[in-house]
């Protein structure tokens, strides 16, 4: 092999090496980014038992502060509405006509729809189901519409 061809080969190998180091660096950065996303959350479960239907008298609205949840037992069934304001995460209060946020003055009607104020979205509704042991189960990862009712 001539001097020139060896030189060319050396440059090519060097180029391949650079691409390899670049790819390894990119992969390492991607892995580091993925590392930042936790796999296990030591938080309260997103799906939980709130008690037996009998604990919620008919026509009542019950506030579960530690779950950030209002549970209703209306004439046509159970439903659960989040007490977290969709605006900036403050806890809304249930008043006679609906919900009120103390932070920025958002108001919602009895179905959690925005009546007034800066909240961009209605309050979240979560699916309520009955477990085999006849307990009410709320699943925060399962959003439902305001027509949802669990007939008990």
């Amino acid at each position: 092999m001539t001097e020139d061809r060896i030189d060319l080969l050396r440059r090519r190998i060097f180029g391949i090496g650079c691409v390899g180091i670049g790819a390894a660096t990119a992969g390492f950065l991607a892995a580091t980014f993925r590392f930042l996303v936790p796999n296990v959350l030591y938080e309260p479960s997103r799906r939980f038992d709130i008690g037996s239907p009998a604990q919620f008298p008919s026509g009542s609205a019950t506030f579960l502060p530690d779950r950030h949840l209002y549970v209703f037992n209306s004439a046509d069934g159970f439903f659960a509405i989040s007490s977290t304001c969709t605006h900036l995460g403050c806890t809304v209060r249930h008043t006679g006509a609906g919900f009120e946020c103390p932070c920025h003055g958002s108001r919602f009607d009895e179905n959690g729809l925005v009546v007034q104020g800066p909240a961009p979205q209605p309050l979240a509704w979560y699916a309520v189901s009955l477990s085999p042991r006849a307990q009410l189960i709320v699943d925060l990862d399962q959003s439902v519409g305001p027509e949802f009712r669990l007939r008990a």
Partner: protein
Amino acid sequence: MNAVGRSIWRIGWPVTDKDRAAAMISSIFLHIHPARVSRHVLRPTATLALGLISGILFLVLSVTGLALMLYYVPYPPESYRSMKDLQFVVTFGIVLRNMHRWSGHAMVAVVFLHMCRVFWTGSYKAPREFNWVVGVTLLILTLALSFTGYLLPWDQLAYWAITVGTNIAGYAPLVGDRLKFLMLGGHVIGPMTLLRFYVLHCVMLPLLMLMLISLHVWRVRKDGLSGAEVHALPAPAEEAAGVFPASTKTHGLMALSRRPRSSVEARDPNDEVFAWPHLLFRELLVTLAVVVVLHVVSLVFMAPLEEMADPLRTPNPAKAPWYFLGLQELVHYSALVGGVIVPTLIVAALVSLPYIDRRKTGIGRWFAPERRLANTVFTALVIISIALTIIGTLFRGPNWAWVWPWA
């Protein structure tokens, strides 16, 4: 001076101007100053020393922050108890905590004022465009440092300010929810969030800030302060004709590059004085004043510490840290406008400003008449943002309803 002393300082206490110049360039800490400096940039009104004060505050925050780390436990509810310990049990703990908190607030304000000064004196123009961008990044980093530190006391004030703040971040389109999840390390503010904010606040952001401050200061050193070039001598005739004699070239990092205009040849020797003592002693005076003011403020005013964070009880009203209350006031009208559109536009406008406004007139003077339009627009925006911040801070009560602060 004996041999040991000379091995450390190279030059003894300088008596002659020659030794003073040598002292400035032979010390790693002093050589961020030039040996000689324009009289015009030494006037207090040239810069108001706002950049220097920002740097001093960063130093004070680093020292007090490192000290506080020896007692602070980044895990709730111990974090709140360690704050109580700092306040009531640790000797001088309350003073250090006060100083850290007030310096942090002061730094946000001073860095903002520094940016205003640079705008009003037209100092972001060529060749300093990129240093303005570095400065904007430093302002954002200052806000991020203050914001991450806000959660650490783990009291009601901290918890709900960060709730409101991270929800504003959640409004970012497409990535908002994931960004919030990544910031919080979960769905709700908890131990994971505290640890993340702690590491960001104590290690990652300060390191990044130190690097960018070094870059910022190094570029100021290379480009000179903007007041000086107004008084510089005209360029030599060869340079004007595009021929650069060897003496005006300098070895840059990437290539042989043209020496900046404020290099020794281009400056008027009659305009200059020695940095030691004229610049150095002014800096010491400002440092002394800042440290005295910080001590007085920290001894008189107590940093707030409310009851322990309670995720079940929202205070009414819940407010973000004061420097985000202008945004929160906008968010009150529209989440998308206040939370996404306005902040994005502000940052984009600030970063692109020196590349849009390329006219080379009115550099190095306050409120130059040639820059009336730019100054008017910028001043209007500054007044609006200060007004919104004051409204959000003082004029908003329960349910974010209008209240009079004196009522």
